[in-house]
């Protein structure tokens, strides 16, 4: 049965797939080629190349079979030893066989047949040890190569279109080049073998390299592990975290390599100028831990913050323009982030659009293809079991959601109520923050304030961040959304909360900055006066110049930029600590408590009230996004912030992976993460834009401090560009820049950009509409087909018997004439038909593949089937093959 099916199938695929090219093939090769191609195609059907030689080969084969089968293992071993000896030759032949990828049909068929034919007797001859076959093969290749050469020579005369000519020519040349080497004696042959060997090794290397690349993806195993236990939604957080880590690494490299390192290596050292020295008043406490913890003291006057940098135009022997570099790095941090976020959004949406079709067979795919046959490790297998279970659960949830029906009015009411409550919460927290910030401004004016009063803002914000999201989640339970949509709502709400917090924080900061700026003028005067008095004071020997004032004694301004940087630094660190402590207390200790107190408690802790914590996806994602916003805002004023953030992300990767695996349980309703995490990315983009605003505002409209930072002494920070253009570029470039900055040019450019955006947007909209319509059409077509088939199903089952006979008759004719077509469905139906005829043989036949009877089954009329090979697989094939070749007249 099985061989019959297969040969029928291959026959079909041959007929249907190759027919068009066959038409052109004979023309290509001329009449001679056609004559030669025919016997070659017939050969496999008969199972032996030539009637005459078939007898000899069968005898050989029979002898080998007897050896293998009857003498048992010892002889088999002997055969393989013999084979190993001949390995060199064999592998050469082996290698020659596979790379024959040709488009033209007769060529291809021949070539495919040849290796089959030759490889097979090569095994047979391994018992008898004949060398002639290799020569035969060489002769064949020689013939082929000659053929190709002739084709190349006569190519001009062929009445083909030019594209076809070119294609044929290229193919033929490739072939000649490839196989000519094999024909040459000595060096050419060895070169050919060597080339094949290299090609094979290259394939293997590529595969190994791919494996290696997969292994190099950081934390891939950890994330897969989590994904298999907790589902794709939790894993999506970790993937996002990893992505974020990558982005921050790049930012870190940018800032560290272009700003911090040059400053440390080439800038004037610590203690040489006032801005790089701890003031006298702070000196004694500057090394205390409590001071350092607040990023005051020595840390404040280090390269981590804006104020440390000098406004010298160039530093070191490289004449590195540090202020310029500082500015450009600040801009490019934003530029790079914008680009990478948008690019990753675009690539995500491309990925999601391409595989819409597979949604038709969700369950079938999971059912039939979920197991990975390459798994050989029991731990991996456990994970695979877990992930299969999880994916089924996810699909069930999706399925249930899609056909759920409920009271629409109640749901609406509840949703409105929930939104109302949440808006109340948001307003309340916004007011609380405003209040606290106002108070902290008062505290900052007072002298001795306690630790709590100093850190009140941070504490309140952290507490809000800790308690509001669970509150929102509780309220959101009213709404009864699908978890995936619910997650988005939740994310949006917490986003609003955090946004409120952030902006209140920023406003407070701005007040502070303006206060400091207003004081700056007086401080500047004081500084001038101090220096003036110092140098002009009486009672000093005029002939000897006074040693300069010690930098620690110079009075200096408050340097608002560093103050802003310190605020962001503090916020980031406190945020990190709060996150870790929450995880430790809320997840780990809770899990320990539940796990170990369960033995001696009144009720079941694991199933009852405290239970284990679930992983809070929304909170974690937003925490990450806002943290990133903080980094973007702060990195201009505190270059070291990105370094801290890289550390934070790194530790949080390991820490959270551990916490999730050790103390969390999978969500009750595991749901599949939306295929693209564009929602996260969208939020990130929004935060990026929002954090760009304050930075741009401060750069554009606030004057830099007069005595600290790389831009001190300038009117605005961006003046550094103008300065560079004027001093370092040729004048005409300066003119060009001035011309480009003309509003008359910028406004049209912006208008043009808007038009382009509008146009592209409308184009993409119409395309996606067309896409959706096409998909709908396919779906509809499929439905129609389904219903059509179910009606017709029985009818075709009845007809199949007749068509099967026709089909096999057709097949017979095909074997003889090599023309015409085979009805598709008919020869496919052949299989069950035959099965019905002799059920006894079917089971044993299906287990064994019989090469010879495979060739027979088509050519033979259906009536002659019952006594054919499959019943006695050990002895039959060869006998029936020989009978076959006897039955059929040679062509």
């Amino acid at each position, binding site marked *: 049965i099985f061989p019959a099916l297969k040969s029928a199938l291959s026959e079909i695929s041959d007929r249907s797939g190759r027919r068009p090219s066959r038409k052109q093939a004979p023309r290509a090769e001329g009449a001679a080629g056609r004559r030669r191609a025919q016997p070659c195609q017939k050969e496999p059907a008969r199972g032996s190349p030539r009637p005459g030689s078939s007898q000899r080969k069968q005898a050989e084969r029979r002898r080998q079979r007897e050896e293998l089968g009857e003498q048992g293992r010892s002889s088999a071993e002997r055969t393989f030893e013999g084979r190993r000896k001949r390995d060199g030759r064999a592998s050469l032949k082996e290698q020659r066989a596979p790379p024959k*990828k040709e488009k033209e049909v007769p060529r291809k068929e021949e070539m495919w047949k040849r290796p089959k034919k030759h*490889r097979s007797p090569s095994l047979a001859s391994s018992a008898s040890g004949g060398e002639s076959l290799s020569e035969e093969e060489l002769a064949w290749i020689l013939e082929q190569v000659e053929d190709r050469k002739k084709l190349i020579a006569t190519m001009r005369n062929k009445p083909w279109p030019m594209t076809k000519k070119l294609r044929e020519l290229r193919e033929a040349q490739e072939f000649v080049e490839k196989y000519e080497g094999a024909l040459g004696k000595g060096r050419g042959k060895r070169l050919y073998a060597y080339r094949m060997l290299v090609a094979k090794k290259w394939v293997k290397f590529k595969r190994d390299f791919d494996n290696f690349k997969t292994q190099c993806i950081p934390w891939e195993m950890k994330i897969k592990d989590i994904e298999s236990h907790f589902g794709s939604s939790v894993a999506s957080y970790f993937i996002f975290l990893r992505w974020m880590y990558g982005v921050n690494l790049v930012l870190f490299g940018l800032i560290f390599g272009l700003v911090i390192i040059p400053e440390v290596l080439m800038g004037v050292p610590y203690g040489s100028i006032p801005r790089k020295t701890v003031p006298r008043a702070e000196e004694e406490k500057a090394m205390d831990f409590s001071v350092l913890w607040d990023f005051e003291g020595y840390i404040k006057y280090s390269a981590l913050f804006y104020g440390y940098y000098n406004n010298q135009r160039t530093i070191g022997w490289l004449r590195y323009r540090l202020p310029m570099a500082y500015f450009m790095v600040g801009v490019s941090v934003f530029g790079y982030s914008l680009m990478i976020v948008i690019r990753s959004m675009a690539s995500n949406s491309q990925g999601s659009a391409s595989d819409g079709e597979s949604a038709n067979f*969700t369950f079938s795919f999971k059912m039939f293809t979920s197991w990975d046959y390459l798994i050989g490790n029991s731990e991996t297998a456990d994970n695979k079991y877990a992930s*299969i279970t999880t994916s089924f659960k996810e699909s069930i949830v999706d399925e249930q959601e899609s056909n759920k029906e409920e009271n629409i009015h109640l749901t609406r009411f509840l949703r409105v109520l929930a939104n109302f409550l949440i808006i109340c919460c948001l307003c309340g927290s916004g007011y609380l923050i405003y209040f606290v910030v106002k108070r902290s401004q008062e505290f900052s004016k007072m002298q001795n304030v306690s630790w709590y009063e100093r850190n009140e803002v941070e504490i309140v914000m952290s507490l809000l961040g800790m308690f509001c999201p669970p509150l929102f989640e509780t309220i959101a339970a009213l709404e009864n959304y699908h978890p995936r949509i619910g997650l988005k709502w939740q994310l949006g709400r917490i986003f609003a909360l955090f946004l409120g917090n952030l902006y209140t924080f920023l406003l407070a900061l701005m007040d502070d900055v303006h206060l400091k700026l207003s004081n700056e003028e007086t401080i500047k005067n004081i500084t001038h006066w101090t220096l003036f008095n110092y140098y002009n004071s009486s009672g000093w020997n005029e002939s000897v110049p006074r040693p300069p004032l010690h930098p620690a004694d110079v009075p200096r301004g408050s340097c608002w930029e560093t103050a802003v940087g310190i605020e962001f630094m503090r916020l980031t660190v406190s945020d990190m600590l709060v996150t870790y402590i929450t995880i430790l207390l809320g997840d780990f200790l809770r899990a320990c408590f539940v796990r170990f107190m369960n033995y001696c408690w009144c009720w079941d802790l694991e199933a009852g009230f405290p239970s284990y914590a679930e992983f809070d996806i929304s909170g974690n994602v937003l925490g990450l996004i806002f943290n990133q916003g903080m980094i973007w805002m702060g990195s201009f004023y505190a270059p070291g912030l990105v370094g801290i953030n890289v550390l934070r992300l790194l530790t949080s990767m390991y820490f959270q992976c551990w916490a999730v695996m050790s103390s969390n349980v999978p969500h009750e309703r595991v749901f599949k993460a939306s295929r693209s995490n564009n929602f996260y990315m969208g939020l990130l983009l929004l935060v990026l834009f929002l954090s760009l605003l304050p930075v741009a505002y401060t750069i554009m409209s606030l004057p830099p401090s007069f005595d600290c930072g790389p831009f001190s002494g300038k009117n605005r920070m961006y003046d550094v560009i103008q300065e560079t253009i004027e001093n370092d570029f040729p004048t005409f470039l300066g003119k060009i820049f001035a011309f480009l900055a003309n509003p008359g040019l910028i406004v049209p450019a912006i208008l043009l950009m808007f038009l382009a955006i509008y146009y592209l947007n409308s184009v993409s909209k119409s395309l996606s509409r067309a896409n959706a319509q096409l998909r709908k059409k396919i779906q509809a077509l499929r439905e129609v087909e389904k219903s059509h088939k179910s009606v017709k199903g029985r009818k075709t089952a009845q007809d199949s018997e007749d068509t099967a006979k026709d089909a096999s008759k057709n097949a017979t004719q095909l074997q003889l004439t090599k023309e015409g077509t085979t009805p598709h469905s008919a020869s496919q139906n052949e299989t069950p038909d035959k099965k019905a005829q002799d059920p006894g043989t079917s089971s044993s036949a299906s287990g064994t593949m019989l090469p010879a009877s495979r*060739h027979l089954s088509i050519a033979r009329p259906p009536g002659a089937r019952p006594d054919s090979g499959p019943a006695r697989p050990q002895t039959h094939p060869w006998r029936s093959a020989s009978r076959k070749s006897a039955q059929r007249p040679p062509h």
Partner: protein
Amino acid sequence: MGLILCSLVSHSQITRLYSRFTSLDKGENGTLSREDFQRIPELAINPLGDRIINAFFPEGEDQVNFRGFMRTLAHFRPIEDNEKSKDVNGPEPLNSRSNKLHFAFRLYDLDKDDKISRDELLQVLRMMVGVNISDEQLGSIADRTIQEADQDGDSAISFTEFVKVLEKVDVEQKMSIRFLH
């Protein structure tokens, strides 16, 4: 018999497989028993492992010799790129796509009636997910699967339907075992 073998696997592969065969053969009698197979980790942990092992054994026998071993293993051999293109008439290699699919199909088709019924699906599901999903849900999964795949309305999956479902899936990749290389 030599003819099939060497059309399926390369020479060095046969020798390597033969040494693998002998190392698996604890009874040292030139045949493998079911217990021998269960020592292969890939099969031991596979939820369908028992069925795959069964596929090695011809009906009613509990020993398999090297040839039978090779014949079944050939299904798992990856299709190499250069083999894909030459799928024309004549003997189709055992590791072709349709043969791989048929092999897989027979793993699911327990009663060998060329249809995968709901009960057969349920059995496989239970093997794959264990007790983590309730029977009711398993039933709905099986129903959904059949509903998706079934085209002629007989509430079972035939081989053609099976092929149709897996049209887009890379069976060649999924049903390949690396130890043949």
